[in-house]
């Protein structure tokens, strides 16, 4: 359960570099709201990026993949849950209706750092 401080620091640094490029609005028909596509990579014991920003009221497509083994993706505050299966891309589609910071975590036990495998979705107004 214990986080390894060095690993955590490294993960945060990698995340900070990755965040800016990970939320992209794709071009859609003029009257349809754009879909915010976000790629999330899982591996023991972190998600990349660790913080995701999306816009309230705009559809989101989360594309989840794993580098090593089965992981869970659980966002209780948004009512979202999925399993991330090796070799597959798991899509979680939703439209955030409320702004805020919503923690998500791996809910499939994956080893000693499992309890620290979490990240956050920031829904902005």
């Amino acid at each position, binding site marked *: *359960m*214990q*986080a390894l*401080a060095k690993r955590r620091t490294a993960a945060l640094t990698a995340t900070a570099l990755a965040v800016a490029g990970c939320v992209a609005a794709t071009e859609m028909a003029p009257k349809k709201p754009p879909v915010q596509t976000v790629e999330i990579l899982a591996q023991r014991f972190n998600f990349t990026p660790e913080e995701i920003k999306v816009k309230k009221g705009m559809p989101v497509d989360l594309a989840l993949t794993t580098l090593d083994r089965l992981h*869970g993706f*659980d*966002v*209780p*505050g948004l009512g979202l849950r999925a399993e991330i299966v090796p070799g597959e891309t798991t899509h979680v589609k939703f439209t955030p209706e409320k702004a805020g910071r*919503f*923690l*998500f*975590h791996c*809910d*499939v*036990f*994956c*080893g*000693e750092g*499992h*309890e*620290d495998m*979490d990240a956050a979705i920031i829904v902005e107004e």
Partner: protein
Amino acid sequence: MNTRINRRNFNRLAGLGGVAFASGLFAHTEGGRVWAAGREAAQDFYFVQLSDTHWGFKNDAVNPEAKNTLPKAIAEVNALKQQPDFVVFTGDITQTTDDPQERRKRMAEARDIIKGLSVKTVRFLAGEHDASSDNGAAFKEFFGETHYTFDHKGVHFIVLDNVSDPGAALGEAQLNWLKSDLAQLDKKQPIVVLTHRPLFDLAADWDWATRDGQQAIDMLMPYEHVVVFYGHIHQEHHQMTGHIAHHAAMGLMWPLPAPHSQPKKGPVAWDPAQPFKGLGWRSVDSETKKMTVALTEHPLAKSTT
């Protein structure tokens, strides 16, 4: 004669740091009624709960006394003048490891240390660190089944396993087993549920929940006298779901912060000025004829053992 009070007085005199916390938590206290009809005669007794010993954990910044914490707790229990009827370990006896051989080594070591208890009736529960990596296989080799029941002096104990499934679920088979067990009981039967994770959503985004725990709570709800004791969150915590009381115990390796008290749930730092702060164990007095339980928390930090 009140053995509970006598024992508490002894604890205080012995400087064991007992802190009486709560009573009346079989919920609907209805003094004088004799419960447990059809089972063995109701008698007062007490047991001890130890939790989250994480044997094999190594990180001096978190607990530089890692190898001494479990033996220290056992020495404290052995020092009790009046010994409990039994001791229960509510999971995470060992720290997880990917190596099956090392996992068994840690379990063997923990088991041998626990054999040092003067009390020879010991009940074991698995935590996710013990069981989630191999669906409980190694745990069963050393400590027995992961879900079972037993009866003691008029109280029906139900041990639930919400960790052998790495997805933190009880699962359909175990829920059906629970349903069958409960179906045999009178609605006034006092029931103690022992489990590792909270059955309710204490902090689901911190993974402090059981995915299908609400189904178990719903099954228990018709029974008038139910108490749940659990571990996992490494701190004392008390919460009601309807008339059912849920009590988390302190851990015996590192404390964790209060739910949602900070952005992430990392361990509370070891304080050299107050070694063992936040670690401890619990005794539970069952005053069965009065349908009450009384909890006493025993912080290691105040111990002189």
